[in-house]
């Protein structure tokens, strides 16, 4: 199966090569460079899609992780680092979401390059971020996982610091220092595991064999804090609203769409996978914090006056549901977390595209200055309404499954703690509806405000439709057919949860 290894490497090599080519093209060919970058992003998207091979599971290894395709070559033996990548049912949907969102963002940038720096530099950075995120999802070696985890930091810093809004410098610093804090703890956690187990191979480590209970507890605490910063889990979330508010549209889309998923994916694959006993020990704390995030996120959203900030805080709530699902450590809960991950990526990506479009048109994101969008720009208002309703978790749309089943999983755990958590989370979900209704009332309904009244009544631009249509379709498709995401996670999730002691 050598040829599949080539495709696997291509999903990482194409964007990396693309970034290099875009950076090296002559300075006056800005638009051409952006187009070339989009071409590479498209090629990477195709490469990631064709990796779909659920039938091949288990052909190569017989551990808890059975990659459909994998590649394993030594890189730095002195550091236990192997270039070991592979794709399976858990990582495949996230990988495709990453390549899809990067493609959409690159295409969007061809049409509209935000002010602040050169458009092609932005495309190059987006491609490097893609390498980091996709590499994190593909890595089957703990040290390699850490290396890719770190790759994302500085390019994202640059995207916020160069193309961001007025408070960009502060927001970018806060983002990079906070997330570096998380990833250095990841480094310590990774080598805590590697030093004790003598291997960094995730396929061998998953299940926690060979690690003492103490090691697992220490490792899980370190890893969980690391991923909680990235996800982000309340109370470690404060970098997120600033970063989202200041980042350019494409930066927010990538941040919310896939960068946060590195945290939840890491929690499932690495923290729970490598230290199941630690996970079982810490689950009540994790669950409580997750529910706190849901409630706090929703309440803060009710008081927000800025469009992007509101959507950013809604992410805190939605990721709370994902983390609650993981904290239950049941098959239902983890599957809910996986589909919640994808749904949040699709819907919040769309919401940030829309928020960017509204801000670009009205030159303000303050809710009090918006209003009556429905009258001036019915299409935009319509799509915003659709995205908001999807985000609320209406049955039939993508947001439903993750949130409903996280609550069901919590109730299914039984006992006073988990029952309370499930009930409170459900109430938090109702609050989500409240603040999105408030958002819609402020932005789309009522008389047109002065900022909105000056909008030209033109409908959506073609490139906008191109960028949004896949996300709208996916929000609907995943809502109607959750098997699109969950069809091939059964076995890996079963393998993960069976290692958790009860």
């Amino acid at each position: 199966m050598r040829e599949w290894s080539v495709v696997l490497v291509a999903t990482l090599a194409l964007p990396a090569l693309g970034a290099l080519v875009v950076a090296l093209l002559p300075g006056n060919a800005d638009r051409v460079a952006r187009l070339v970058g989009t071409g590479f992003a498209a090629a990477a998207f195709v490469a990631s899609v064709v990796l779909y091979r659920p039938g091949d599971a288990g052909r190569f290894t017989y551990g808890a992780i059975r990659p459909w395709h994998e590649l394993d070559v030594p890189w730095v033996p002195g550091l236990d680092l192997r270039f070991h990548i592979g794709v399976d049912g858990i990582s495949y949907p996230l990988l495709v979401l990453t390549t899809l969102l990067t493609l959409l963002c690159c295409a969007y940038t061809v049409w509209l390059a935000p002010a602040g720096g050169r458009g092609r530099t932005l495309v190059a950075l987006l491609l490097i971020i893609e390498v980091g995120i996709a590499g994190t999802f593909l890595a089957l070696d703990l040290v390699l996982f850490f290396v890719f985890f770190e790759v994302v930091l500085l390019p994202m810093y640059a995207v916020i610091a160069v193309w961001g809004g007025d408070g960009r410098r502060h927001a970018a610093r806060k983002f990079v220092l906070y997330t570096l804090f998380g990833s250095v703890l990841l480094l310590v956690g990774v080598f805590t595991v590697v030093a004790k187990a003598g291997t960094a191979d995730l396929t061998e480590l998953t299940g926690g064999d060979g690690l003492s209970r103490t090691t697992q507890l220490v490792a899980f605490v370190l890893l969980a804090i690391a991923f909680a910063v990235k996800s982000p889990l309340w109370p470690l979330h404060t970098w997120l609203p600033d970063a989202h508010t200041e980042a350019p549209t494409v930066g927010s889309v990538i941040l919310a769409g896939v960068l946060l998923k590195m945290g939840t994916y890491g929690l499932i694959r690495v923290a729970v996978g490598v230290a199941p006993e630690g996970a079982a020990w810490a689950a009540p704390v994790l669950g409580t914090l997750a529910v706190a995030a849901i409630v706090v996120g929703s309440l803060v959203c009710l008081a927000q006056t800025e469009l992007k900030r509101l959507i950013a805080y809604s992410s805190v709530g939605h990721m709370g549901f994902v983390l609650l699902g993981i904290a239950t450590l049941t098959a239902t809960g983890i599957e809910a977390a996986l589909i919640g991950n994808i749904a949040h990526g699709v819907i919040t990506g769309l919401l940030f595209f829309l928020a960017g479009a509204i801000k670009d048109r009205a030159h303000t994101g303050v809710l009090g200055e918006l209003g009556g969008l429905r009258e001036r720009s019915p299409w935009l208002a319509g799509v915003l309404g659709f995205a908001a309703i999807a985000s609320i978790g209406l049955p039939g749309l993508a947001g439903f499954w993750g949130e409903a089943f996280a609550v069901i999983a919590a109730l299914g755990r039984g006992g006073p703690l988990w029952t309370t958590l499930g009930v409170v989370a459900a109430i938090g979900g109702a609050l989500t509806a409240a603040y999105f209704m408030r958002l819609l009332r402020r932005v789309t309904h009522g008389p047109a405000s002065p900022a909105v009244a000056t909008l030209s009544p033109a409908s959506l631009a073609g490139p906008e439709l191109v960028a949004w249509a896949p996300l709208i379709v996916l929000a609907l498709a995943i809502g109607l057919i959750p098997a699109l995401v969950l069809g091939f996670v059964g076995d890996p999730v079963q393998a993960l949860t069976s290692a958790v002691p009860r």
Partner: protein
Amino acid sequence: MIDHVALLPAYLAAGTAVLVLLVDLLVSRRGATVAFTGLGAAATAVGAIAVARGGDRATFCTGDACSYLATSRAALVAVLFALLTLGVLGLSAPTLRSAGIPVGEYCFLLACSMTGGVVIGYAGDLVTLIVSLETLTLPLYILVGLRRTEVTSAEGAITFFVVSVVATSVTLLGAALLYASTGAVHLSLLRSAFAADASLVHEPLVQVAAALVVLGLAFKVAAVPFHAWAPTAYDGAPVPVAAYLSTASKLGGVIALLYVAIGPLPLEVAGPVLAVLAVATMTVGNLVALRQSRMVRLLAWSSVAQAGYILAPLGAAAFAAGRSSDALDLAVAATVAYAVFYVAMELGAFGSVVALRGSADGGAIEDYRGAARRTPWVGVTFLLALVGLAGLPPGLAGLFAKVTVVRSLLGGGAGWLAVIVALNAVVGLAYYLRVVYALYSAPDASLGADACVRSDSSSQPAVAPAFGFAGVPWAVAAALLLATGVAVVIGFAPQLVLDAANLAAP
């Protein structure tokens, strides 16, 4: 019977110094002097490799103990020093071209310093070690003070001189006390003395002696609390000399510490001292660097912090788990590997400063606003060096350096120290990013278009290079690209460094 083949690298290095002095006297042309210095340094590196290929040698022996050991790790040290000297010589081109700097003296002193550095690796007893370390440092007092029209330069030289002399006497006192209590100065004899008599470790005299030796050497690496000379000396010195101080001079201290602390000295005493030094050094260095507004001072404080990371793996020996021979091998290899990664990136950072500033001093960080937009390739080398020192991709060399240290600490059971190293990396990023932000931000409009980095050197008018690579003199460009190239290569293939570092394990 003296083995002159074993001594070849030392002869070559010392010969270079003498030759340079003669060439300057007889030919008296800048190009010739510089060329001979460079050739001498290259010959030293080649000589060291050639000797090492012939197997281990030793000379100046009394009984089994020898004062001069030509091993492969000694060759590694010699090659490192020779290459560093070459690199710094390349960076010195603008300084040497400016008025008031005597070329012959400069090259002679640099070659003398290199001689000391080369011999450190071959040292087999405490006396040779301390004398060679002093030979490395002594010429630097004068080099730091070479900018004769500047008060800061004299100030730096005096501070450096006084502190360094005190440090040397502290080390010598420690060595004397060691000799008094064990009767040995040879590293191998000290090792066997402590191995033979375990009760010796609990003698107060031995404990004081070991602590004094380690603390004296800590001055040389500018470890906190013996660091105060470094920012003053770096900022006062010509930038290439500051580069040499923060790479070669620091490397000399690290190697001396490695030679005495691992093996010859009882680790029960040296380990805790090193652990405390490491923690204090990285924390204080990083925190103070946050507040710096001058470029060279910021780099100086950052190099203080980096010394803390270099010492950290040895700090694992403070606990019994870190004193097993496996853990020690790991720690020594990690220290050497980090030092090599660090030296490549530090040279890149200082090289970028020289490329942007010419013969002027480092200036304020504000002066660098927009510099990367004017000279993009220097922007890239500076970015790679700074980000590498912060330990993040795309500076992969720095990332793997950090990984190596944390791995060895966790392998030695010193998880708490690993957490401190990790948290320090976060603080470090804050100030490295400040420089990067300045480099890539738009030039301040109020200063006008020509407020560029080069033109504000009112005291020393910058010499426009007659030829060069994108506005940077050839020698500087070559040294800078080489340093960056090395950093990139070892970033992608860190195994090269780790293999070399394993040579250094005891």
